[in-house]
C-alpha cells in the first residue's frame, strides 16, 4: 500500500512516497507559488494515496500550562477552550497532557502548540483539498522528536535534540523527562568566517540560556545536546563544540540513526525528514493539527477500505463455510459408499439364503405358523388318561371309597367347574342334608353349548369327582374324615389340588338337615361326596 508523506518546512516541501514500509520516491518543492503549482501537478498523480503532512515550521508555537485534573470529557472541554483562547487565529492547534505535577493539587501538565500562521500551510492544504486527497493527519515534527530520542535510547532528564531540516534550517527541541517542552527553528545563515559548528554551539548555548532563564535547570542539571548530522558535515561541526558542566554535546551519525530505526537506505545529507517519516512508519502518532473536516477524505478512504475488508471477509467466511460443508459432504459420500457396499453384501447374502431355504411346498411363514400352533396348542394339550392315572393310584389306597362319576375338563380358567348330575347312592344314609341343587354351586357352563367355543390352551384340568364312602352306620365323622384324607392325598400329587365340594354330611348351618332312624339299622352305610380337583400344567412341561 502506497503512503504519501509531506514534510513541510518554511523553505521546502518534501514529498516522500513509501511502499511496504520503505521510502520509494522523494521529491522536493520550493515554498513558493511556483513550487505550489508544481506540487499541484505532482499531487494529481497521487491523489488516492493516504497522505500524512509533517510540519517543521518556525511558526509553531509551544506553551506550557497546568490545568486541574478532571475527567476526560471535562479535560477535553478545558483544553479546547484554552486552545481557542491562546491560538484564536489558526485552526491548526493541538494540546497534549504530559503527566501531572508532583506537588500541590497535582494538576495536569499540558503542552499547547499551534501553527500560528495558517497561511504557511494554506497553499499546500488547498492543493490537497482540490484533489480530494485523503489527509490522514497533520503532525508536528517537534512533538515527534521525543519519540525519536526514545527510539535511540537517549532518554535524559534534560535533552536538546538538534536536527537539520530541508531548506537549510536547524531545529532545536527541548525534551524534559521524555516530554517536549519547547522547540525553535533557526535558519542556517552563516556569517563571514563562521563555521556550522560555531553556529550550532552559539544557538544551543543561547537556547540553554533561555531555558535557564525560565528556571528550568537546577545547579546540578546538565543539558544533553544530541545533534543528528551526516558524516560529511561532522568535520564542520565537531571541532566547534566544547562541553561544559551544564552542556554536553553528543553528535549522532545520521547513518547510524537510520540503521537503528531500520531505515534501509540512509539519508544522503543531514536533513532529518526521512528519519521522521520512518519513525512515523514504525511508531504511529495521533493527528495533531488536522480538523475532522480536513480529514474527511481519509475517513471516507478508511471506511471504503473497511467496507471492502468486511466484504472480502464475508466472502472468505462464506467460502470457508462452504469448504467446510463440502468436506463434510465428501466425508458423507465416503460413508455412503461404505453403506452401499455393505448393502450390496447384505442383499447378496439375503438372496443366497432365500434361494437356499428348504421348500416343503409351503411358505416359510406357513411352516412357522404350523409348528408354532402345534407347539403352543396341541403338543402339550392334556389328556384324560394322564389325569386319571395318578388319581387312580390314590383311590386304590382308599378301599372304602367308590367312584361313581367323573366330570373332567381342559381349560385356561382355573375357576371353571364342570357340570355334573348327582347320582343317588345305592342306600340312603339315615341322616342327610336336604338336597340342594348342585348347579347352584357351579359356574355356568355356557361355553360348552356355544356354537363356537374358544379352544382352550389346557393349562388347567378341572374335574369333579363324585363317589361314595362306606363306613359303619351313623359314623358320619369317620366318613367326613375319610373324604378329607382322600382330598389331602390327591393334593399331594405334584400339580394337583383337591377340595371337598360336597361333604358326606353337610353340616353347614345354612342347610337343612334331616335324620330318619329306624328300629333296626344296617351295619354299614354309604355316603355321597364330591371333590373338586384342579391340575395345573406348568409352562414348558407337564403338570
Amino acid at each position, binding site marked *: 500500500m502506497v503512503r504519501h508523506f509531506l514534510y513541510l518546512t518554511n523553505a521546502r516541501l518534501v514529498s516522500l512516497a513509501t511502499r511496504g514500509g520503505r521510502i520509494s520516491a522523494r521529491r522536493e518543492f520550493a515554498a513558493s507559488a511556483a513550487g505550489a503549482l508544481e506540487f499541484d501537478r505532482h499531487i494529481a498523480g497521487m491523489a488516492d494515496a493516504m497522505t500524512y503532512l509533517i510540519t517543521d515550521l518556525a511558526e509553531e508555537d509551544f506553551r506550557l500550562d497546568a490545568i486541574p485534573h478532571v475527567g476526560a470529557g471535562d479535560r477535553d472541554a478545558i483544553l479546547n477552550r484554552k486552545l481557542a483562547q491562546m491560538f484564536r487565529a489558526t485552526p491548526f492547534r493541538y494540546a497534549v497532557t504530559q503527566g501531572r505535577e508532583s506537588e500541590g493539587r497535582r494538576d495536569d501538565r499540558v503542552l499547547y502548540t499551534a501553527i500560528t500562521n495558517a497561511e504557511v500551510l494554506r497553499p499546500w492544504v488547498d492543493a490537497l483539498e482540490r484533489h480530494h486527497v485523503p489527509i490522514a493527519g497533520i503532525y508536528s515534527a517537534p512533538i515527534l522528536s521525543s519519540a525519536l530520542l526514545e527510539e535511540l535510547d537517549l532518554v535524559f532528564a534534560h535533552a536538546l535534540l538538534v536536527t537539520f531540516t530541508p531548506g537549510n534550517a536547524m531545529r532545536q527541541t527541548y525534551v524534559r523527562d521524555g516530554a517536549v517542552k519547547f522547540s525553535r527553528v533557526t535558519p542556517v545563515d552563516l556569517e563571514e568566517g563562521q563555521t556550522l559548528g560555531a553556529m550550532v554551539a552559539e544557538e544551543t548555548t543561547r537556547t540553554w540560556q533561555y531555558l535557564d532563564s525560565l528556571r528550568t535547570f537546577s545547579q546540578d542539571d546538565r543539558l544533553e545536546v544530541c545533534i543528528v548530522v551526516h558524516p560529511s558535515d561532522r568535520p564542520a561541526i565537531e571541532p566547534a563544540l566544547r562541553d561544559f558542566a551544564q552542556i554536553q554535546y553528543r553528535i549522532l551519525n545520521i547513518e547510524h540513526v537510520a540503521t537503528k530505526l531500520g531505515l534501509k537506505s540512509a539519508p544522503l545529507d543531514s536533513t532529518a525528514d526521512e528519519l521522521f517519516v520512518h519513525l512515523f512508519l514504525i511508531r504511529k502518532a495521533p493527528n495533531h493539527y488536522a480538523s475532522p473536516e480536513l480529514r474527511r477524505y481519509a475517513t471516507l478512504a478508511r471506511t471504503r477500505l473497511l467496507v471492502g475488508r468486511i466484504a472480502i471477509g464475508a466472502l472468505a467466511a462464506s467460502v470457508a463455510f462452504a469448504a467446510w460443508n463440502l468436506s463434510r*459432504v465428501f466425508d458423507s459420500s465416503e460413508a455412503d459408499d461404505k453403506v452401499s457396499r455393505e448393502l450390496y453384501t447384505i442383499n447378496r447374502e439375503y438372496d443366497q439364503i432365500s434361494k437356499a431355504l428348504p421348500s416343503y411346498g409351503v411358505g416359510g411363514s406357513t411352516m412357522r405358523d404350523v409348528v408354532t400352533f402345534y407347539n403352543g396348542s396341541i403338543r402339550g394339550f392334556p389328556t384324560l388318561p394322564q389325569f386319571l392315572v395318578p388319581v387312580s393310584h390314590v383311590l386304590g389306597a382308599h378301599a372304602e371309597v367308590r367312584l361313581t362319576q367323573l366330570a373332567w375338563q381342559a381349560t385356561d380358567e382355573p375357576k371353571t367347574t364342570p357340570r355334573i348330575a348327582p347320582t343317588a347312592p345305592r342306600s340312603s344314609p339315615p341322616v342327610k342334608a336336604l338336597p340342594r341343587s348342585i348347579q347352584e354351586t357351579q359356574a355356568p357352563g355356557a361355553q360348552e353349548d356355544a356354537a363356537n367355543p374358544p379352544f382352550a390352551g389346557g393349562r388347567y384340568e378341572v374335574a369333579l369327582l363324585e363317589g361314595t364312602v362306606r363306613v359303619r352306620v351313623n359314623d358320619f365323622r369317620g366318613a367326613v374324615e375319610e373324604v378329607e384324607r382322600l382330598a389331602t392325598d390327591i393334593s399331594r400329587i405334584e400339580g394337583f389340588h383337591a377340595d371337598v365340594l360336597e361333604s358326606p354330611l353337610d353340616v353347614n348351618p345354612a342347610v337343612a338337615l334331616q335324620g330318619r332312624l329306624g328300629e333296626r339299622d344296617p351295619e354299614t352305610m354309604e355316603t355321597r361326596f364330591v371333590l373338586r380337583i384342579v391340575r395345573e400344567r406348568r409352562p414348558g412341561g407337564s403338570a
Partner: protein
Amino acid sequence: MKHIFTAEGLRKLRMAWALLALSLAGGAGIAWGSHWYLEKEKRDSASSERRLREARSRLDTVRRERDSLHESAEVFSTLVDRGLLQNERRLDLVELVNALRARYQLSGLDYEIGAQRPLALAGGRVFPSVDVLASRVKLRARALHEGDLVGFIDALSRTPQGFFPVDRCVMRRIDVAAVDSLQPRVEADCTLEWVTLKEKRRG
C-alpha cells in the same frame, strides 16, 4: 464519522456499499447453497442408513427363518404326515372310530361331528399364514369296564392321522339290576375338536 453519511460520503462510498451488499448476498448464497447441499447429502445418507437397517433386519429375519425352518422341518414334516394341513377326511374318521370301537369292545357308541368352523383360539390369537379350523365331535360311549373307555379316548387322542384334543369328558357308572349280566357298567360323554390348518394364500 459524520462525513460517511453526508451526500458526498454516500456518493464516494456507493461502490463500496454495493460491493459489500453483493459480497454479503453472494456469501449468504454460497453458505446457504453449500449448507443445502450438505443437508441433502445428509438426507440421502439417512435414507441409505435406513435402507441398510432394513436390509439388516431382512437378513436377520431370513437367517432366523432359515434356522427356524431347519429346527422346525422335522416337526413340520411329521405334522404334514399326520394331516394337519389337509382337508378333513371324514370317512377316515368314521372308519377310525369304528376300528377303535371294535378294538375296545364298546357296547355302544354315539357320535356327532359338527360343521367345520374357524376355531377361536384363547386370547383371540391368529396366525398370519394359516387359518385354524375345527369340527366339534361329541361322543357317548358305553363299556363294560372303565379301562376300555379310557383306552378308547386315549387311542383317539394319539391316533397318527389327525389331531383330536379331548377337552371335556364325563364318565359315570351305570347301575345294573343283575350283577352278573353282560351289560354296560360305565358310560362316557366326551367332547373333542378335530383340528386342521389351512394355508391362507391357498384360499
